[in-house]
């Protein structure tokens, strides 16, 4: 995989803006709830297609998403 994201479940308020932002639809709203009662966003990339484009993190109002990308060699 070229990219991946880590979502802080406890900072997330389930606004789902990242879900709309992801061009590859790799983010879903989880079934579980966090300690505040929100359904946090969840990164689901079984095929490893995330490019680390950061569109999700850009739109996250909670700064709950960290984005990682492969170093170009």
């Amino acid at each position: 995989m070229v990219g991946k994201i880590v979502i802080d479940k406890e900072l997330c308020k389930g606004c789902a803006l990242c879900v709309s932002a992801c061009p590859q639809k790799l983010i879903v709203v989880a079934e579980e709830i966090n300690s505040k009662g929100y359904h946090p966003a969840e990164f689901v990339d079984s095929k490893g297609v995330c490019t680390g484009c950061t569109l999700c993190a850009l739109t996250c109002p909670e700064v709950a998403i960290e984005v990682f990308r492969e170093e170009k060699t």
Partner: protein
Amino acid sequence: MMKVVFERPKSMFPVPTHYCPGCGHGIVHRLLAEVIDEFGIRERVVGVAPVGCAVLIYNYINCDMYEAAHGRAPAIATGCKRVHPDLILFTYQGDGDLASIGTAEIVHAANRGENITVLFLNNAVYGMTGGQMAPTTILGQKTTTSPFGRSPKREGYPIRIAEMLATLEGATYIARVAVHNPRAIIAAKKALKKAFEVQINGLGFSLVEFLSPCPTGWGMPPAEATKWVEEKMIPSFPLGEFKVPKSEKSVK
């Protein structure tokens, strides 16, 4: 080897915020902290917090700060900047703070060409107090104090702050941006960076108006709120740069 390409800016405290899900404040706070980090000015920055949802901005941004009375942030910033001209002053204000009670203070700070940067968050409603009409509420918009929808005869027209302030010779950089999608957010950050550049270079008064969703105030879920910014707010509040520095030089 994976390296981090997006993380929390250093100037932001690592704490959850009190803002509603999908609120634009979180995005604008982050852009502000990123710009502060990128210019390396955290130790020179002084902020002035408003009365409104963002009164607690001082819990999120790590720099010297004042908590202002409603509408008076530009006056407080003026007082501080006159004492310490080397510090970088920003005010952060909402619709009520800047466009209602604080109209005199923002006009005159801009008119005097005070070398400060104003972040004006326009979400067409009074968020903190429960969704009342703001001077920026658009025609037809229903709020708790315009239950029949804003009409020119009853409530007057929405105020276009960016255009109004751009008529003042004392204002150096005035821009309106939005934070309803990633593309808009990237453009918003560019404008904010330019605004701070203007102050760092001593070129005068800068203001960036951010069109921002208020899901709770508007009574709609976050995704719908971002659409409302696009379809309803932008036609009333066009995006763009309304005033730019005469020299149009940017700092490295």
